[in-house]
């Protein structure tokens, strides 16, 4: 199944934005799939398997990102990556923020 790329838009809901920890998780998850993963914001498109690339997005809360996945496992990859982006921040992040206040 090497058809047309699958596209899905996701809005960043994390108050801290799409920051380094979720970026690392995203890039590591994306790298487990054979499909190519692109993430774009307002026309700027980067490689979703590279943290250094994802850092270019500087996506704050409310930013809309578009995922573009192409390859033999595209649907599985897209589902997993969207789920990751939509999942709430981990508990330790919430407690970390309150500890630092």
């Amino acid at each position, binding site marked *: 199944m090497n058809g047309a790329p699958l596209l899905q838009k996701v809005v960043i809901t994390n*108050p*801290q*934005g*799409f*920051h*380094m*920890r979720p970026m*690392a*998780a995203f890039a*590591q998850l994306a790298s487990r799939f054979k499909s190519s993963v692109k993430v774009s914001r307002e026309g700027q498109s980067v490689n979703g398997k590279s*943290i*250094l*690339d994802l*850092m*270019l*997005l*500087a*996506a*704050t*809360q409310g930013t809309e990102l578009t995922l573009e996945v192409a390859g033999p496992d595209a649907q599985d990859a897209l589902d997993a990556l969207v789920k990751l982006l939509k999942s709430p921040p981990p508990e*330790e*992040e919430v407690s*970390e*923020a309150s500890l*630092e*206040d």
Partner: protein
Amino acid sequence: MRMSDFVVREAIVPELPATNKEGVIRAMVESLRAAGQFRGADVEDIIRAILKREFLGSTGIGRGVAIPHTKHNSVERLIGTIAISHKGIAFDSLDGEPVYVFVLLISPQDRPGDHLRALENVSRSLRDDNFVRALRGATTREEIIALLDRAEH
């Protein structure tokens, strides 16, 4: 925002004496304190916060680069510094390789956008292999400052 907007020049560490993760972070935070960026009383708390963040997942992003960071209410604007280790330091990096170039960031509590823009800026610089190679070869603060200035034209 450009890297020279938040890198505190006087706090750049051209030759890290450290041999481990905590030593790197301590040297960089101490260097920012010596440059007058926050009170000595805040040093230990900042180090602890950065180490806590590292514990949740290393900021060693591969290619010999790490970006340790935290939010802390001792700073009113985002500040950062750069440090170089010529020997390389084990940092639990995502690619398992030692780290040679460190960019440490401390941002105010309520400015996530500034932090993300700083990361964008760091990425724009560090994605250039020649720039990273030149940084790794630098041995003085002046050399690193010159590289930063040149990279941003």
